[in-house]
C-alpha cells in the first residue's frame, strides 16, 4: 500500500523557499557589472563589499568608530560601493549602483577621475 505523502507540500514550499532563497541570494542576482579590466561579466564573479565609507581619523570619537564598524547606511537609491572581481582579475573597484533597480550607473578604479560631480567620490580610509 503506497499512500502518497508530501509532494503538495513540497511544491508550495518549493515555491516559497526557492523564491526567497535561491533566487534572491546575492550570488544569484543576474545583473552584470563592467569590470574596469575585464569588461562586462555576470555578477557572481564578483564579491560585494558594501558601500564606500570613510574610515574615522585617528582622533575620532568612540561613537564615530562604532558608527563605522557596526552600522550600514542601507540606502534606497544611488550609492557608491566596493566590488571585487574575485573570480577573475582580482581588482577592487567602485560601482555606482541604484540599489532599487540594480542599475549599474558607473564603474571605475579608485584612482580614476570621478565622472559625474554627483558621486561624492569614494573613500575608504583616512591616510
Amino acid at each position: 500500500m503506497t499512500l502518497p505523502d508530501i509532494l503538495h507540500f513540497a511544491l508550495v514550499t518549493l515555491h516559497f523557499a526557492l523564491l526567497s532563497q535561491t533566487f534572491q541570494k546575492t550570488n544569484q542576482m543576474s545583473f552584470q557589472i563592467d569590470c574596469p579590466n575585464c569588461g562586462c561579466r555576470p555578477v557572481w564573479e564578483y564579491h560585494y563589499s558594501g558601500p564606500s565609507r570613510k574610515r574615522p581619523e585617528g582622533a575620532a570619537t568612540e561613537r564615530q568608530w562604532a558608527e563605522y564598524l557596526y552600522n550600514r547606511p542601507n540606502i534606497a537609491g544611488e550609492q557608491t560601493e566596493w566590488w571585487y572581481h574575485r573570480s577573475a582579475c582580482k581588482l577592487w573597484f567602485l560601482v555606482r549602483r541604484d540599489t532599487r533597480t540594480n542599475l549599474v550607473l558607473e564603474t571605475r578604479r579608485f584612482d580614476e577621475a570621478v565622472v559625474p560631480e554627483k558621486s561624492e567620490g569614494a573613500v575608504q580610509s583616512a591616510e
Partner: protein
Amino acid sequence: MIPQQVDSKIPPPATIEFEFDGHRVRAESGQSVAGALHAAGEHIVSRSFKYHRPRGLLCMSGRCPNCICTVDGTPNVRICTQAAKPGMIVKSQNAWPSVKFDLLRIFDKLHHFMPVGFYYKRMYKPRWMWPVWEKFIRRIAGLGTINREHGAEGVYDKQNLFTDVAVIGGGVAGLNAALAAAEAGVSVTLIDEQRELGGHLRHDPELAELSRMAAPGRSAFADSPSRTAEGGHPTVGDLIRRVSEHPAITVISSAGVFGCYEGNYLGIQQGQRMIRLRAAQVIVATGCWERPLVFENNDLPGVMLASGVQRLLHLDHCQFPGEAVVVTDNAQGYRVAKQLKAAGTRITAIVDVRDNPPETAEGIPIHQGSQLLGVFHPADSRPEFEGIRVYRGHTVVSARGTRHVGGVVIAPLSGHPRQTLSCRWIVQAVGFTPANSLLYQNGCKLRYDESVDQAIVIQHAPAMYSAGAVNALHDPRDAVLDGQRAGLAAAAALRPQDVELAQRIGQIGLIGRTSPIEREAVASAHYVSPSGAKKKFVCLCEDVTEKDICDAIDEGYSNIETLKRYSTVSMGPCQGKMCQSASIAICARHNGQSIAETGVTTARPPEQPLPLGVLAGRALHFSLVRRTPMHAWHEKAGAKMGDAGNWKRPQVYSSVAQEYEAVRQRVGVIDVSTLGKIDLRGADVVKFLEFIYPNRFANLKVGRVRYGVICDDAGILLDDGTIARLGDERFFLTTTTGNADAIDSWFRWWLAGRPEWDVRMTNVSGSYAAMNLAGPRSREVLKKLTDADLSSDAMPYLAASECTIAGVSAIVLRIGFVGELGYEIHVPSQFGLHVWEAIMEAGREFSIAPFGLEAQRVLRLEKKHLLPGIDTDALSNPLEADLPWIVKLDKEDFIGKESLARAQQRGDRNKLIGFRLSESVIPDLASLVLCDGKLGGRITSCGYSPAVGGTIGLAWVPANLARNGQTIQVQVNGRLIPAVVQDEPFYDPSGSKLKS
C-alpha cells in the same frame, strides 16, 4: 482538400509495450504515454488532490494536473509529454488502492465537511488535535511519493549559455522571429517546451495551412529565398527545417523557461539539466493555452480541451469512439468538430455560447480570421457537417456520468430550459489564456483589454519583445508577421547601424488583426456556465470549486491575491494555467468589478514546478579541485586524503602515533603547499605591513621571519602567518590554507585605497610548493641537500634565507609550528615533487616519515599554537586569544588599533587557555565548560597528547578562570570532568628544542 500532415517525420508505426498500474499497454512508437492509454481505453489516469475524483486527459500539452503519474520511479511526471518507451513502468498517484477504484473517493461525499479553508477553521480545536490531523492529512494528501532509496536517476547538471537573441516558444511566431533575427545576422537561441517545434500548427492542419497565407508583400522575407515558388510562405515543415538547419540558430527543445531575471537572464529546465541563458534580447512568443469552461462535473474523464483532442488526433493518431458534444465560442470549436467527424466521431451537437455567432441568411460562416472555412447550417447537408445541430446562445450546464462522461446537460445562458444529450466526449473550445508570466516577471506592463479578452503589453521591459498569441494575435497569418517584426526589431537593436534592417521592419509595418476577435463582449458566461451546482471545478489542481471561491470572497477574501492564498486556487502544480482566467472572472463577477479592475496575481518564478535537483544539483564539473605538486606521491604512499577547501591534503599516512613519534624522535616532513603565499615588494611595504598587522615590522631585519596575526578594524583576529624579509624592499608572507583567498583580497582592498603607496603585491600561492621538514634530525637531512650553512649561528631560529636545496633555488624559513627544529622550504611548484623525493631519499638513513594533518594537529596542540577560525571565531581578539604580546598599541595606526585599545582598557572578558583533562576521554569539539554549574565556555581543540600522556586541549573560558592551575569543569557525555588550566605549552615549554 485535407492539408497534408505537419509532421512529416512520423516513423512507421512499430508497437512497443509498457506497464500502467500493473498491466500491459501497447503503444505505437512515437506515441505519448497518454496517447497510448487513451487508445487502450484507459481514461482514468489520476485522482484529484482533495476529493479523489477520477480525472482523465485534458490538455495533452503538459499544462494541467490531470495526467500526473509516477514514471520509472520519478513522481509527478506528465505523461502526455512523455514518449512511450518499451518497458516503462507508469504508476498512477494519489489513489488507493488504484485509480480505477479509489476508496478515498469517500472524501468526495464528505465535501460538506471540507469547505474552503476548512483546515484553518476546524482542525485546530482542541489544540492537540491539530498534530493528529496534520499527520493524517499529510498521509492522504499530496502528490506522488519520492523514491528515497535511489532518488531520481542520473545526474543533475548545469549549463551556462549566451546568445544575441533568445526566442521563447517554437510556434509560428517564435519560428518566424528566430528566422528573421538569424537572417539579419545575429545569433539566436530558440527554446521550446514541446518535443517538436511547431506549436499549435503541429496539431491543427488547417491553421498550418493558413499560416502560409500571411500577406506576402509585407513579409520580412519578401525577397529572400524563404518564400516558396508559389509565392506563399513556406509550409510549417519547411519553416521548421530551415530553423533547425540555420547555422546561427540553436534550438533547445523539451525545455521550459521557468524564470526570466534581471538582465534578460533566463532559467531553463531541460530534463535534469538547468540551463542559464544570458540573452542580449528576449522575444517572448510563448503563445497561449486553451482554458476550460466551469460547469458541473467539468472534471469528469471525457471532458477535454479542443486542443487536447487535436493533439490526440493528429500527434498520437488516436480516435474518439462514440458521440461528442462541442462547446465553443469561436472558430476553433467548429474546426475541431470537423476534424473529429473526419476521424469517425459522431458530433451530437455544437453548443455555441454566442447568442449571435457571425451569421448570414444562409447559415453560420465558419471563419478562421478573414478566411472563410465554410458556411454552416444547422441542418447542413454538406458531408463534413451533416447531422450536426448547433445550439446558439447555449452552454453546457453539467456533465453526466460517474467514471466517464455519459451525457451532457445543456441550457440557454439563462439556465433554463435544460435538456440532456447523450455523448461520451465533451470538447471545450472557449478561448485562450496567454502565456505571459515571463513578461510580467521581467517587468513588462500589461493591461487587460476587453476587446481581445486578454492582457496585452502596454510597455515592454528593456530589450524584451513579445510576438504572436501573447499579443492577442491568434490568427497564424498575423503571428507570422508579428514574429518577423519582433525578430527584426531584436536584431536591429543589436545592429543600430543597419539601415536595411530598419527598412524591412518598415515594410512589415503595423501588425493589424486580419480578422476581428470573433466573440461578443466578454461575459462571464464564457468562463462559467450558469447553475448553482456545487461540483463546478475552477481549480483542478487543488479541487477548488466556484462555490469555494464565492464563499471565500464572502468571508472577506475579495482581493485576488488574498483569495488565492486562502482558497489555494491557482496554487497547484499547473500554477494557475488552467484556473487563472476563470478564477479572475468569478472574482470579478462576485465583486461586481470588471476583469481589468480585478487584476492578476503576481507572476513569480518558477513558471512551472521544477524538480528540486535541477535547482540544487551541484555542478560538479564547475567545482574546482586543487592538488599539490606532490599529490601523486601521497597517493602512492597510501595517504588518506581529505578536503581542505578546494585542496586535497594527506590526513594520515601510517598512523598518527607513528608519525608523531617520527617528528618528535627523528624527522618528519609534511606537504604545506596549500599555504597562501604573497610576495610584496616596494619602498612602502614596511609602512603597509605596519598598518596591516598589529605587530611591528619596521625593525624586522633582512634574513629574519616573524609570526604575525591580522585583525580587522573591530580588532577581531582574522588570520595568522609568517612574514619573512628577504630584502630591504622585499617580503615573503604566508597565510593559512583556508584564508589564502580572503587575505589576498584583504590586502588588495587596503592597497586599492592607497594607490600612492609603492607596494607591489603578487599572490604566489600556486607558484610555490612548500614542505615543512621537522624533527631533531632535520638539520642533518637538509645538510645533505644544500651547501648553505645551516648551523644555529648562521641560521638560527626565525631565520629566513634563500638558498639552493637539491639543486633548486628555495626560500627556507626556520620556524617551528610543530615545536621541533624545523625548516619550511618553499620551492617553485614544478620542482616540488623533486625536492620532496630528494628529502625522502636523504632522510632515509634517519628513518624519515611523511606526516599528515592529523599528526600535525596533535603536535601543534602540544605547543598551544592556535588555528584561526578553529580556536578563534568572529568575537576573538588577539588579546583574549592569548597573544597580547603581539599587539603594539604604541604604533601610530594599524587596522584594529582603536578597537584593541578599547578592549585592553576594558580588560579581558574571556580567554583562550590550554587545559589538561583529569581523565583520558577525548571530549567532542565544542564541549561545554561549566563554571558554578553555569555555561562558561567551550572547547575548541583537544586530543590525546603522547608528551603529557593524557588529554589536552584549548578552550575559551571566562577571564577569571584563566589562571594557571585553576580547575575547570568540562562536560563530556553529560558528566563533568575536571581539567586544569595550564599557561605553559605542554611540550618543550622553554622552546629549547625549537631553537636547538
